[in-house]
């Protein structure tokens, strides 16, 4: 098995959480000390920009660029929102990361706050991660006691603190603007930009929203430099490592840290110990439920934002959901579409009306009531998803459209046999 450098998981212990002392022994909080003693916020942003750290929450937006979108003369207070909503089916890396080494996340948030001169951070956590919320509250207090959080951090004039904000539980809350409404105690519909949250976010104040994993890389980039970070990737265009979480029909579903650009085949065969006995790789969703089915044609592809987008796929959150040859992909797509239909916030028509419509057509096909004309109807309808307000419905279109593109025969078999051929 390839041995790769571990960044976020370098201290990971089986069955327990890394303590503050252990994190410090591995060089933790040195980056924070260094920037507070001798780096300007601008220099911090420059380093993260040079490292080409792309957002790990699904969209892949460059983190340094996002921070630089907070105007120099923007008003105060400014806020940081740490997105650990992670409700996309297949995705569980943030949970594993928080449970492994919470302080790399906390230090990352503090450095991000320093870079954009924020004074308060909101750590947004979903209800099923109550354990993570409790761990974080305890470790934030430890960081406070150690002088890394609160007033006059490490004796400087920089003050910043973080609160854990528990979500009421809804997929849309993970959307970059809906999360703001959620925190403010409003109905969490997305807010159509502009203005972007970096200009007007929480309570109309500048707000930076970053994913947990993205922020966790920041201390390591500050400590080891942008060139080191870029060199971790196996592709020319890529940068850093990534937490891949793999589930489905593999022997060892898991969350592993591997370089950007590692091959899908290697992830499945080595790190997940291959497909389960009697299972053959049929397809996977490479980056969570809102990406397109990837077929065996790309089994050897290098997992990077650019390599995937070159072949019309998305790395997303790198949550790889593996389906085998015995899985009916009409049924799988029905399940995924049901999820999106239920979790739609209902604010705009293409999503609120379109998703249940397609779900119903898929249900009929799966249950032997399908007709030939449903196929063009689903195609047309999923194109309308792109007129939606936010990325939820276009994301939902991923599995639907790719089902019809790559597995049209399987869909047609359902229709001609008037039943699911897998049952």
């Amino acid at each position, binding site marked *: 098995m390839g041995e790769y450098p571990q960044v976020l998981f370098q201290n990971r212990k089986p069955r327990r959480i890394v303590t503050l002392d252990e994190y410090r022994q591995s060089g933790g909080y040195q980056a924070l000390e260094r920037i507070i003693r001798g780096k300007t916020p601008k220099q911090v942003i420059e380093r993260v920009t040079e490292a080409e750290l792309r957002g790990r929450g699904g969209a892949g937006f460059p983190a340094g660029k996002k921070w630089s979108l907070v105007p120099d003369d923007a008003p105060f207070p400014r806020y940081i929102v740490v997105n650990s909503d*992670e*409700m*996309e*089916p*297949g*995705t*569980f890396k*943030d*949970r594993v990361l928080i449970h492994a080494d919470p302080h790399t996340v906390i230090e990352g948030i503090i450095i991000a706050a320093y870079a954009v001169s924020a004074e308060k951070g909101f750590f947004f956590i*979903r*209800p*099923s*991660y*109550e*354990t993570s919320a409790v761990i974080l509250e305890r470790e934030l207090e430890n960081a406070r006691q150690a002088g890394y959080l609160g007033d006059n951090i490490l004796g400087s004039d920089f003050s910043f603190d973080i609160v854990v*904000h*528990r*979500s*009421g*539980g*809804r*997929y849309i809350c993970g959307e970059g603007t809906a999360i703001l409404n959620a*925190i*403010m*105690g*409003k*109905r*969490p519909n997305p807010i159509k930009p502009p203005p972007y949250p970096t200009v007007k976010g929480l*309570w109309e104040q500048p707000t930076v929203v970053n994913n947990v994993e993205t922020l966790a890389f920041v201390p390591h980039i500050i400590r080891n430099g942008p060139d080191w970070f870029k060199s971790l990737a196996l592709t020319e265009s890529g940068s850093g490592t990534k937490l891949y*979480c*793999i*589930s*489905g*029909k593999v022997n060892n*579903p*898991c*969350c592993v840290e591997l370089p950007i650009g590692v091959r899908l085949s290697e992830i499945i065969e080595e790190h997940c110990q291959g497909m389960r006995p009697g299972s053959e790789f049929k397809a996977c969703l490479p980056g969570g*439920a809102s990406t397109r089915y990837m077929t065996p044609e790309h089994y050897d592809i290098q997992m990077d934002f650019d390599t995937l987008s070159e072949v019309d796929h998305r790395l997303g959150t790198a*949550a790889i*959901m593996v*389906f085998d040859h015995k*899985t009916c992909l009409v049924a*799988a797509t029905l*399940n*995924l579409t049901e*999820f999106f239909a*239920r*979790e739609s*916030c209902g604010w705009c028509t293409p999503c609120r009306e379109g998703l249940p419509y397609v779900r119903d057509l898929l249900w009929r096909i799966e249950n032997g009531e399908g007709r030939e004309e449903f196929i063009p109807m689903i195609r047309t309808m999923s194109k309308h998803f792109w007129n939606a307000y936010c990325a939820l419905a276009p994301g939902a279109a991923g599995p639907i459209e790719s089902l019809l593109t790559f597995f049209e025969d399987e869909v047609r078999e359902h229709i001609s046999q008037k039943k699911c051929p897998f049952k």
Partner: protein
Amino acid sequence: MLPDELREQFAKEIAQVENPREKAIDVMYEIQRNFGYMSDGAMIEAAELLSMSPVELEEIATFYNFILREPVGRHVIRVCDSAMCWLDGYQSILDYLRSRLKVEMGGTTDDGLFTLLPVCCIGYCDRAPAMMINRTVYGYLTTEKIDRILQTLVDQSKTSSSD
């Protein structure tokens, strides 16, 4: 209907933040921890404490999967029905729970101990099939494991009611 002690605790917590409604979910969770669900009376009192109108709080409460506006049993069982759990036995887990508890989805057992609800992906895809009971997650479910979990909760309730 809210005890004075709880009202005071909320007032103190709300006073610590600039924008009271930021605490809406926390307040509702705490009420649910005490009373199981958000009754109409609790909604009105909570809204007042949060400087919101009852309808404003209602539009939040009804939006979220984990805010309950109807009474539930002491233990709320939420069975994950999203893709990876579906792929790995969700249906048989649900069927088993239904027959063992003798309730349909959404129902509460006659002894008021368990309520069965659906939930979408809870982020434990590596341990599918999974479910939550209140805020605890259980993965790698089998019928034997479910038996053990439920029996422990039944035993606990017997001990606590004889106290």
